[in-house]
């Protein structure tokens, strides 16, 4: 059984069915890329996996480490080891990055983390993400640039050490330097901590820096094509339109 097991997932929001039967298996230590054109349901899948209240699962299931979490509260999923890096991280005025991290870490633990241990972890994460130390005393995402917000997401991921992380278009809006830092951070967390990741992206850029073992193409709420990294190259050559012509019609599913 895979660590994260998504079966026949149907999801509605605002009276509209967005996901129409998604199956996906993700294990610790695996990097998956989920690609698809705008409106294909990528962000819906990301939000649903973490239990966003606006998305209703009408059919199917999500299991994590053998437990059915389809109806679990978002914080329970997080505590179990899931993480979502937001496409648009929310600013939390009045709370410093460091204090927020401490709260989040303590939420997962019985005993509060020791100051020294926290500092060591934070120092490590800061170096990994190539951010300034002063960064952690700023209010979370408040007045951050796009690149800073995404770095803050990966910083949180590094500190919380999830088993499986979903990165919802973390690459969008980043310049090439920020993109490289973020991508290398993900790769290192994978290499060092055995992170499993689902990298959701519209573009191919980020996949030059993080190498997925598995690539899935999502269109109209279904995964229409799956394969290895060669799929990314094909997409680069042919674009989504070609694939849509091939698989876009009703009823045609990936193997």
């Amino acid at each position: 059984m895979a660590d994260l097991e998504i079966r026949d997932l149907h999801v509605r929001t605002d009276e509209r069915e967005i996901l129409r039967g998604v199956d996906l298996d993700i294990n610790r230590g695996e990097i998956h890329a989920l690609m698809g054109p705008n409106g294909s349901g990528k962000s819906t899948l990301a939000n649903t996996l973490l239990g966003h209240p606006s998305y209703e699962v009408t059919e199917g299931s999500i299991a994590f480490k053998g437990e059915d979490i389809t109806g679990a509260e978002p914080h329970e999923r997080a505590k179990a080891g899931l993480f979502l890096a937001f496409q648009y991280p929310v600013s939390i005025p009045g709370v410093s990055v460091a204090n927020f991290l401490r709260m989040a870490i303590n939420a997962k633990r019985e005993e509060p983390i020791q100051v020294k241990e926290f500092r060591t972890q934070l120092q490590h994460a800061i170096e990994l993400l190539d951010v300034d130390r002063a960064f952690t005393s700023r209010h979370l995402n408040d007045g951050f640039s796009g690149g800073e917000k995404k770095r803050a997401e990966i910083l949180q991921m590094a500190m919380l050490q999830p088993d499986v992380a979903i990165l919802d278009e973390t690459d969008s809006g980043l310049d090439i330097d920020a993109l490289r830092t973020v991508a290398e951070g993900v790769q290192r967390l994978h290499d060092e901590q055995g992170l499993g990741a689902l990298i959701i992206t519209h573009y191919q850029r980020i996949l030059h820096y993080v190498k997925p073992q598995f690539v899935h193409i999502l269109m109209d709420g279904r995964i229409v094509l799956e394969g290895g990294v060669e799929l990314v190259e094909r997409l680069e050559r042919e674009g989504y339109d070609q694939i849509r012509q091939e698989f876009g019609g009703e009823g045609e599913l990936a193997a």
Partner: protein
Amino acid sequence: MSAATNGATDDGAGNGAIPVSPDAPVQVKAGRHREATLYHALAGAGAGDGRTLAQLREAALKVYEVSELPVWRRSGFWSTSVQDLDLDALETSVQVDGVPAVVTRTLPDRPQAGRIVQSAGAVVQVELDETLARRGVILCSLEQAFEEHAELVCEWFSKRLPIDRHKLEAANAAFWTGGAFLHVPRGVVVEEPFEIVYAIDRAGVAQYGRTLVLGGPASEFCVHEYDLAESFPDGGQALHAGAFEMYLQDGARCRLAQFQDWSPARPGEVFDVSTRFVGVGRDAYCHWLPALLGGHLVRQHLELAVMDKGGDMAFRGVFFAEEHEHLDVFAVDLHETGPSGGDVHWRGAATGESRASFEGLIQIDPGAQQTHTYLQIHSMMLSPKARIDAIPSVLVSADDVSASHGGTVGELDETAIFYMQTRGLDRAAAVRVIVEGFFEPLVAELQDEGLEELVRASVARKLAAAREDIEAYATSR
């Protein structure tokens, strides 16, 4: 002008203002306008016009005897009425047994420059750092100050505080006992705060608190006021009618903070009707931050006035109303001369079925040219039945100034809650982070760890108490 007519129309306290002299201004019909449009700053309304203390008490007593308990009406909004207060059942002078436990329990354990504690009608503790005393700092009861430092006190006492706008103000002026007097002389710089405490430890008490603080030229100091109540296990009412005045002379700098929380009295009811005036002299500066955190009915008239050139101020405030509490704040940012600076920034939240009204007024008098000031008020409603009205106003009578206001009324941001939940915080913790974060920019300005923690703990306690309410509200939207 006689005391009884001074400022009779001041703040629209309709039936509270009784003109007893032929030269009394025409009364404006109460309830037709909001407060600011009726308002006259306390400028010139002060009673300190050379009369003796006995004469002031006598004048106030006359007003007290003929006036009713006040109602402040608000067009289109609601009223603040003190008429449920059974004033006759309260005692002004009661026996007290030392420093109430709530004081020792609440005040941060930290060094202080001095401390004065009044319980009910009597001062029960006065402590002053000996070195400071040798340098001329005075901290004592106001009664004692009238005996021992009469010249100094008489020059300033009630200089800008009226005594006759409504029954409770008159009651304070007529009946005050104990009181606090602080004088920091010229050039004295004090790092640790002076603590001024008013405590009510039982029902049935009418506490008429009276504070006078003088900052001599180029002095620097901090004042922390605490307003605290014990639990009234059998219910019952109590009153704190306060009058606070502070005058900062040339170049003086003061950080003034107030921690006010009468809510521990519940099921008892503490009414708090107070007027506070801070006057900033030439090139002087005041940072003033009241934290109004509870009371059955609280009405605060707060006025921070730049009285001379080069004066500057930061007027901050936080409030949090819960359950059935009623809070009415009228805060004035007054500029009498220019150039001067001002910056008003308040934040408030409400849970339960509480109501809070914050009216903020920028008033720039003729001649206060080159004044630059800004007023912002942010509020957060956390329950379907809570209500906050924020009413900013600007009255400008000079043409070379900048004055503006802004504000937000917010509810909980569900996206932010989800965001934090995906980091492992449960919903209640996420709400707490948001609300604490909402207050934090101002709380951090207290620049005093002990006081900051008190305010944070109070906010956390109120949120925990209203948890179900907040939950139900969020899911209903």
